[in-house]
């Protein structure tokens, strides 16, 4: 049996054995999109294979085909040499393939144990679910990944990090020989990421074949043995990690070299435009105070769940603070709703693009003009010509790719949706733009474009607040950095006095500015 | 010569009583020869539904409309419109306010019915009298209210009858059943239930049977022999009354025909022929009664239960 533990060959030499899984000629189309065209991929036991590629390259689509969620249009899947098909996710699990998906696959109302075992719960007599055994088994799996979570707890009572651990436990609860991880570290904090790496090593030692998808190059080089690169739904290269390097991989991915340099232009920093003092919320954050100046990029760093998004949404009027004051251009302002924030020149590009940003179902031009309707309409009556004009102006500045402006925004790719959202805000001529994780899950090429654009905006005299969990981005783009931890500010650093270590220590609660010690 | 088209509009389709009335109407049509009956009505007993039906009858320019109304007043504007367009309008069974029809045919007089109900209840009370309750339909129906008023008028003549309450079952089987159950529980000494509605009387008899009170509580009132046969047999109901719906449909058709063909006019004091049923004399409200209700009990139920 292949999935039995074998002594690990610790060196990352190519294992000379047969692939446990081989995909060949896989194609998959969605209406209007060819997500995959004839890709091949091989996974070997005891080996971590990294799958890299730009956004929309088709990585997650491949994962879904592997796990029986999508059916391929063409191509073959071979498991230890035998051709197989997976009509449902259940069949894939039965065949020994398990996955940590990019999207959450959990159920808030069910218990932790049920979340782990839904679909393959242990059965007792008469085929009924054996709850006792399920809970014991769940406890064992959780222990194996080092998570202290009560299997009987309801999932909704857990924090975000625990939920991710449950998702990982779920993937490991089946006896699998192939483990797929689609951006497993995107939502984890530093410590948990380290634990995950250790787990990957253990799985490898047990002889599992691992497919690891990530946009983070440092971790690819750290844990992967082999790589496969997708570009526009095609396989453009594969090989041993030890025989490639960072630049070569990026070139394969993007089709051109991309510099790591952040295009931070020196903008003139002027008078304060936004002053926040003593800002507090009953449960999410407390005692926030800072000043944002004209032409400045202010970075907010912190671990996931530090409360940065909540703070920004309070500044934008989505939630109400319990205490504290805001001054805009010296004038005290009370912001009770996003409409008021927009009127006062503060706009927010949200973190959850699908839910909070783009309005799928409305055409592109209507998305762009939604906050500016008072300007494009006359006495409440719409003027379509004006709307098209405004939409044309701002979407062309952002180099939007779309069939026409009257198309549903939901049909666009993620990157282009993000452009529509940004165009929407630029059209309101704001003074302050808050960008919440503007490059989260965005590929290297698009990232650079976003950064370029931010520089242009500050050069024009706007001010930017940028929330980011990526240290290079924070370091590369910010004029000043504020670190948050558990809802409080724990440090504030000017650009020239900050480095990666300082940030990580402050965010983890080890360091921080003296100014913030009470 | 063209057929005379007479529309028989009922409270709702599917009610046994009205199906029987339709039989009577067909009988009258056959007898008259040149009459076409349009039997119609809404699906549920609402005034709005009846108005829609009447509107389409007006559109078809029928010769006469004979309606058993779901609402005394709500039909008036529509029926007035019908009369304006030259259509003869009468009401029967459940009447329409005087301005909305040429005449109204009551199945019986309210007074006779009220008296009959109390009499039937009194006859089977134990020595010394006892508690009696009324289970009515939703009394948005005109006639139930009138009958109850008449019952209350004759009560002094029956000292043994102690009327305790009136409840409403909305002419819904389940609601009536529950109301009857409520009566049985709230009034442990209850001796009789008067239900002047064919839905209510069946439900009450069923509730009495289910509560094991057959012989203790007598259910009486107005009901259909076909629906009550079982309960008369079991003893839950000693007797009940009803006019003959076949005769009623027959009489209504005859009157409508006579008015539509100008063989009679509806004015106070007029006598209008109802064929084999006799004649009806109109009072100052242009109303008349067909006959007194007929009592059914174990002795004659078998004969009638297959008729209606």
């Amino acid at each position, binding site marked *: 049996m292949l999935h039995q533990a074998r002594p690990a060959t610790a060196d990352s030499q190519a294992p000379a054995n047969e692939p446990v899984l081989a995909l060949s000629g896989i194609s998959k189309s969605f209406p209007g999109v060819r997500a995959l065209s004839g890709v091949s991929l091989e996974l070997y036991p005891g080996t971590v294979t990294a799958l890299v590629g730009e956004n929309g390259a088709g990585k997650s689509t491949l994962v879904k085909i592997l796990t029986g*969620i999508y059916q391929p249009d063409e191509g073959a899947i071979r498991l230890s040499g035998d051709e197989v098909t997976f009509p449902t*996710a*259940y*069949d894939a*699990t039965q065949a020994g393939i398990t996955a940590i*998906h990019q*999207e959450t*696959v959990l*159920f*808030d*109302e*069910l*218990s932790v144990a*049920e979340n782990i075992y*839904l*679909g393959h719960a242990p059965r007792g007599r008469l*085929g*009924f*679910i054996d709850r006792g055994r399920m809970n014991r088994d769940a406890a064992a799996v959780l222990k194996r990944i080092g998570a202290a979570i*009560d299997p*009987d*707890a*309801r999932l*909704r*009572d857990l924090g975000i990090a625990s939920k991710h651990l449950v998702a990982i436990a779920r993937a490991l609860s089946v006896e699998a020989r192939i483990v797929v991880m689609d951006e497993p570290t995107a939502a984890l904090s530093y410590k948990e990421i380290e634990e995950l790496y250790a787990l990957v090593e253990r799985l490898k030692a047990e002889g599992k074949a691992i497919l690891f998808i990530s946009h983070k190059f440092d971790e690819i080089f750290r844990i992967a043995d082999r790589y496969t690169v997708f570009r526009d739904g095609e396989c453009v290269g594969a090989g041993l990690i030890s025989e490639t390097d960072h630049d070569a991989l990026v070139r394969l991915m993007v089709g051109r070299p991309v510099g790591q340099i952040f295009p931070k232009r020196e903008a003139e920093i002027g008078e304060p435009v936004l002053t926040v003092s003593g800002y507090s919320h*009953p*449960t*999410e*954050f*407390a005692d926030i105070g800072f000043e944002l100046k004209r032409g400045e990029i202010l970075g907010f760093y912190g671990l996931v*769940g*530090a*409360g940065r998004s*909540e703070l920004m949404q309070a500044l934008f009027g989505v939630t109400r603070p319990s205490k504290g004051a805001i001054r805009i251009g010296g004038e005290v302002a009370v912001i009770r709703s996003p409409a008021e924030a927009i009127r006062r020149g503060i706009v927010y590009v949200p973190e959850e693009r699908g839910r909070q940003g783009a309005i799928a179902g409305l055409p592109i031009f209507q998305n762009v003009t939604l906050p500016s309707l008072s300007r494009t309409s006359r006495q409440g009556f719409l003027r379509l010509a004006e709307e098209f004009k405004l939409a044309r102006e701002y979407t062309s500045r952002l180099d939007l790719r779309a069939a026409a402006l009257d198309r549903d925004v939901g049909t666009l790719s993620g990157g282009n949706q993000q452009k529509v959202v940004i165009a929407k805000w630029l059209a309101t001529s704001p003074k302050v733009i808050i960008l919440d994780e503007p490059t989260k899950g965005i590929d290297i090429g698009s990232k650079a474009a976003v950064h370029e654009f931010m520089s242009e905006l500050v050069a024009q005299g706007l001010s930017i607040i940028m929330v980011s969990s990526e240290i290079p981005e924070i370091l590369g783009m910010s004029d000043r950095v504020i670190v948050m931890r*558990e809802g409080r500010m724990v440090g504030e650093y000017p650009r020239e006095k900050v480095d990666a270590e300082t940030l990580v220590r402050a965010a983890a609660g080890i360091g921080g500015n003296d100014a913030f010690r009470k | 010569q063209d057929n005379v088209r007479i529309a028989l509009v009922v409270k*709702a389709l*599917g*009610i*046994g009583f009205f*199906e029987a009335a339709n039989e009577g109407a067909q009988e009258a049509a056959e007898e008259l020869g040149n009459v076409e009956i349009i039997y119609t009505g809404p*699906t*549920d007993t609402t005034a709005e539904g009846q108005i829609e039906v009447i509107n389409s009858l007006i559109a078809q320019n029928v010769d006469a409309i004979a309606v058993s109304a779901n609402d005394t007043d709500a039909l008036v504007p529509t029926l007035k419109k019908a009369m304006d367009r030259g259509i003869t309008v009468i009401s029967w069974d459940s009447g329409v306010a005087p301005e909305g029809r040429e005449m109204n045919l009551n199945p019986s007089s309210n007074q006779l019915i009220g008296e009959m109900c109390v009499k039937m209840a009194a006859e089977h009370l134990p020595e010394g009298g006892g508690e009696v309750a009324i289970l009515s339909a939703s009394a948005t129906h005109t006639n139930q209210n009138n009958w109850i008023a008449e019952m209350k008028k004759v009560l002094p003549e029956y000292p043994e009858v102690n009327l305790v*309450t009136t*409840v409403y079952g909305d002419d819904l*089987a*389940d609601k009536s059943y*529950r*109301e009857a*159950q*409520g009566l049985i*529980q*709230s009034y*442990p000494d209850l001796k009789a239930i008067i239900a002047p509605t064919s839905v209510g009387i*069946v439900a009450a008899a*069923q509730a009495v049977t*289910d509560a094991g009170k057959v012989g203790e509580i007598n259910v009486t009132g107005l009901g259909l022999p*076909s*629906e009550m046969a*079982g309960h008369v047999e079991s003893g839950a109901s000693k007797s009940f009354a009803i006019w003959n719906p076949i005769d009623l449909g027959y009489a209504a058709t005859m009157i409508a025909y006579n008015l539509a063909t100008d063989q009679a006019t509806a004015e106070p004091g007029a006598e209008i022929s109802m064929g084999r049923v006799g004649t009806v004399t109109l009072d100052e409200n242009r109303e008349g009664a067909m006959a007194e209700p007929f009592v059914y009990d174990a002795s004659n139920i078998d004969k009638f*239960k297959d008729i209606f």
Partner: protein
Amino acid sequence: MAKLLKSRELLLAAVIVLLLTAIAWRFPGFVRPRNLANVFNDTSILIILALGQMMVILTRCIDLSMAANLALTGMAVAMLNAAMPGIPVPLLIALGVLLGAALGAFNGVLVWKVEIPPIVVTLGTLTIFRGIIFLMSGGAWINAHQMSAAFKAFPRAPLLGLPVLSWIALIMIALMAVVITRTPLGRAFYAVGGNPTAAVYTGIDVGRTRFLAFTFAGALAGLSGYLWVSRYAVAYVDIAGGFELDIIAACVIGGISIAGGIGSVGGAVLGALFFGVVKNALPVINISPFWQLAISGSAIILAVAFNARAERKKGRLILRNREAAA
């Protein structure tokens, strides 16, 4: 603390007990065991229907056609009984259940294969089913004397002190409790309603699960169809008219979330019982029955408001310092 869910049912039970106490204060007879058994018996059909509706609502769907389904199957078995009194009652019940399941499956197929929103599907079938009854019966009633004695006697037959009708409800409650908590299908109902996308990832066929929920709900409606016509000993087009909203209301009062994925068998049963107690108590305590509608309306609004409050998170408590201090 994870037993928040349980506390919701406890609270509803407490409200019902309080209600009973209040009634008993003015009318002690109401809480005599025999009468309470009566109330339960009277509520049995609503309980069975609420259990069916619960499955459908759990999967984030809704079935407005349950009452029409009940009426159609009820009429069908009544007509069959009237035409062929020789057919044994158990067979009739089985036929009713099958017919109900078929009607439910029709809803389910439209939701599953044609992907019409459930509310539209059942709005349509609600009128279609009623219409079919009319076509079937020609609008005529089936009356007590047309039904065989066995047909009418079955739900009333006493068994260990309770009528068979009550026993059927009890069995259905037990059965449903097992199905919901102990079978993969039962858990799939929660998964499909709680997070349909994620359900696909766990190998659950969302459409098929919904189809099964509709089919089972239909089967329960079919069973209720027989129980209804035999209990009230009459069948006509309009029986149980408007009852579909009572069924949903019972579920809502019982804490089953209309958004899917939340609810329990206990909740559905208690929600239905609340209705039963109010309906039965009003005539007894001499409150005009005209109050009943307003009371149930207020109860629905209060229940929804309360459940929404209970579901709303107390905030995520990022400020752990404060949490620790508390």
